[in-house]
């Protein structure tokens, strides 16, 4: 649906986007993740033809954006960070304006009603946008992106400013949309991205730091199989029993719950599940397990790991705020 190759954009000496390539498949939800100023919005602007890239090629539904902008843009619905709304129009007026703007050939009022229903804003359709609350404005913004049924939706932080109930609703809307649309979505809310995206691109300093499914991202970064366990019994015996097991790298007591009960952190070898042998060994020693938890590296950790690691490697301390100001 979208093919991006070797995309670059500099502002003066600052490389906002540096040689990015990726593709978006039909019906896929792709998440853009990255710290502030990493180049997410710049990349999205380039995909919509709002920023002309210095180098690289963007193909939307087979049409080259620079050579055939009209045909390419017809397939895009874009929601920028700040929803693009004319305050002096009513919601319905704005949507029919968007219909015309996007060359929608079908029945305009039917299309408006469809989108109004989808975004749950039909009860405010005759209100002026300047009188709407933040949540309704955000929904109206999403509606402007959806109108005309474009094949690709590019949503820049679509759930910002919504209350938790609305966030859930909008997420459900987005998930449902992916049946008919391909979606690129940026966010810095990690649970959101991991909940709805099929694939994630982590962008850092204008480069793609990682690109994979949310599960793979967190598991690939995990270097060991970690278990937190609470056991009743003498500490030395427990430590001895556990450390004598196969595939255990290290074990330490991290928490004292009461005189006899301690919390331990066990690091096992990656991809080796030691929970069963652990259970039998402790049962033999009459040391009951009170709690056991497998520590998954969350996407949050993966994200921090990737972005911080990069920074570590390069050893420079450029502030991300520089990029924000552009």
């Amino acid at each position, binding site marked *: 649906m979208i093919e991006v190759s070797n995309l670059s954009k500099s502002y003066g000496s600052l490389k906002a986007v540096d040689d990015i390539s990726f593709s978006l498949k039909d019906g896929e939800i792709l998440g853009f993740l990255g710290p502030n100023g990493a180049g997410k919005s710049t990349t999205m602007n380039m995909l*919509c033809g709002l920023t002309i890239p210095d180098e690289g090629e963007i193909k939307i539904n087979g049409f080259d954006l620079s050579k055939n902008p009209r*045909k390419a843009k017809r397939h895009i619905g874009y929601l920028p960070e700040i929803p*693009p709304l004319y305050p*002096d129009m009513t919601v319905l007026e704005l949507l029919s*304006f*968007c219909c015309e703007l996007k060359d929608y050939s079908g029945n305009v009022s039917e299309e408006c009603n469809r989108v109004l229903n989808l975004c749950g804003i039909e009860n405010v359709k005759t209100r002026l946008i300047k009188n709407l609350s933040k949540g309704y404005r955000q929904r109206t913004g999403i509606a402007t992106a959806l109108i005309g049924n474009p094949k690709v939706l590019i949503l820049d932080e679509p759930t910002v400013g919504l209350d938790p109930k609305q966030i859930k609703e909008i997420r459900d809307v987005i998930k449902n949309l992916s049946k008919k649309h391909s979606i690129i979505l940026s966010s810095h809310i990690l649970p959101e991205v991991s909940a709805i995206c099929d694939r994630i691109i982590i962008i850092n300093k204008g480069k793609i730091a990682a690109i994979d499914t949310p599960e793979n991202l967190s598991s690939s970064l995990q270097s060991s199989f970690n278990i937190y366990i609470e056991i009743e019994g003498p500490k030395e015996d427990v430590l001895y029993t556990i450390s004598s097991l196969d595939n255990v790298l290290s074990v330490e007591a991290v928490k004292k719950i009461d005189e006899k009960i301690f919390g331990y952190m066990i690091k096992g070898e990656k991809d080796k599940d030691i929970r069963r042998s652990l259970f039998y060994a402790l049962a033999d020693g009459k040391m009951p397990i009170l709690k056991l938890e497998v520590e998954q590296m969350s996407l949050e950790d993966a994200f921090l790991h990737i972005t911080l690691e990069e920074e570590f490697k390069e050893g420079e301390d450029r502030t991300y705020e520089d990029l924000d100001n552009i």
Partner: protein
Amino acid sequence: MKTWTIFKREIRGYFYSPQAYILMGFFILLTGFFFSDFIVHTRYPSIQYSMANWPMIFLFIAPILTMKLFTEERKYGTEKLVFSSPISVTEVVLGKFLSVCVVYLSSLILTLIHVIIVSIIGKPDLGSIFTSYIGNMLLGFSFLSVGVFASSLTENQIISAIISFGLLIFFWIIDILQGIFSGIPLKLIKLISLFEPYTSFQNGIISLSSVIYYISFTGIFLFLTVRVIKSRWLQ
């Protein structure tokens, strides 16, 4: 044609808000003042003399009328909606320009009441009134194109108004300088003066060179607007 889409939205914006009415009212009030002042003092039924003041009045109105055109798009971020749609920059600029032209033409139409009044009380030279209207229209379009250009330069309406006002004052002052210079500088001044071609319309002549002058002046500023948007906004 997307120009029509943009045009409709802008016209709606002008006439659904007090803005167009206030500016048109201001224009009618001042032109009416000059008109009645002349008739009352000279007892001579003519509108040519009061019409000579119209460009000066409109010179103050044009910057205010045009200042919101592109500045608001940037302020509300709606330029992202417009330019991510299948539409060309030229279509957007033309649509916006035409909408302010229509607002200006509406106020010109309202001044026709002056023509009706002088026709009742005397026998005016309708031919030269007609050419003066054509002249005012073309001159007004040139003013508006400068305003459209200025509004593409900044995000601030006040700054936009000041820029277009400054540019228009420049073209006016250059006209005054005609008395000081002679020879080549004078020719140069006459060449770029926005008001010089207007005099022929006042005298009842539609001169081709004046028409071409105003059309190309307008065209150049609209073209510059397109360039500014392409090179500064879409970067």
